[in-house]
């Protein structure tokens, strides 16, 4: 499969949040969130309650996918950074480790230059964490040690979801 399932564990989740919190402070950003390329929100920090992060995640992934389509049409592999400038708020979107999307929302308290600089550093740290995570996913899959929560799922469990 071109895009295998992503499984997130406690340890890496905490490490990711530490990197994002640091980036939030150092870039003077309002909100930062991390999205799977399929549009699923991985985590976020900052003023997340003020925004509809689920929708932002889905539209960001759609945006990255569409931009990726544009890149291919002109012979590029992908555009790794997107920037959207608004009157007050701006979005800096970048691809990390080839498979997740880092979104930084900032206003006039910060600047594009500062955000770019800090995102670059954070991306390196996030890439290292995601590489470890993917390796862990692979190892667990190979050893059959998946501790999979749905292994014992029943028809009734599923029916109850719709009741």
């Amino acid at each position, binding site marked *: 499969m071109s*895009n295998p399932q992503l499984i997130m564990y406690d340890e890496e989740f905490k490490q990711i949040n530490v990197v994002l919190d640091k980036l939030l402070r150092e870039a003077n950003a309002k909100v930062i969130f991390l999205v799977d390329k399929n549009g699923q929100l991985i985590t976020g920090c900052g003023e997340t309650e003020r925004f509809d992060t689920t929708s932002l995640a889905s539209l960001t992934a759609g945006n990255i996918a569409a931009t990726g389509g544009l890149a291919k049409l002109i012979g590029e592999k992908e555009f790794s950074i997107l920037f959207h400038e608004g009157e007050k708020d701006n979005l800096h979107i970048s691809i990390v480790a080839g498979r997740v999307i880092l979104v930084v929302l900032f206003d006039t308290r910060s600047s594009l230059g500062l955000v770019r600089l800090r995102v670059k550093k954070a991306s390196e740290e996030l890439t290292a964490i995601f590489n470890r995570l993917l390796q862990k996913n692979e190892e667990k899959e190979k050893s059959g040690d998946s501790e999979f929560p749905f292994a014992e799922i029943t028809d009734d469990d599923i029916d109850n979801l719709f009741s």
Partner: protein
Amino acid sequence: MSFINYASREINCKIVYYGPGLCGKTTNLQYVYQKTAADAKGKMISLATETERTLFFDFLPLALGEIRGFKTRFHLYTVPGQVFYDASRKLILKGVDGVVFVADSQEERMDANIESVENLRINLIEQGYDLDKIPYVVQYNKRDLPNVVSVEELRRELNPTNVPDFEACATTGEGVFETLKAIAKLILFDLKKGK
């Protein structure tokens, strides 16, 4: 593919509604949106043209509840049905966990249905998926209209592998939740197998 988060105990799955233009994909999502309790749904997003045709996708996040301590979320997407939006359809199939094919039961739309299923199969292959292996259900929509093809014929043309199929009228909601429940069930059973 689905995203399982052990840290926040959540599982997210992506369902895509596919089918020819004007078959009722967006109407399916609108009905689900209307009938779902406010605390279980997110905002429905529709990226449509001025004439209300889907331009890129519709999106509806649904939180259905917990299974074995994990919050289960389904992200429902539609694709634009019109033939010339093929590039968008390919993008939306990325990372899909299950597909609902919405067929238009009207006689004059049979060719469009067949073309759309073929298009689905080809676009899935491009993303590395096989329609015969992923969770897949078919919905025969618009059963309330006078000029419809019989279900037997629809089944013969559009569902040769005999996946679960449902008669529906998305405007009144008939068959809408049955279809959604069936695809969600197939996805969860697929997950159970650890795919």
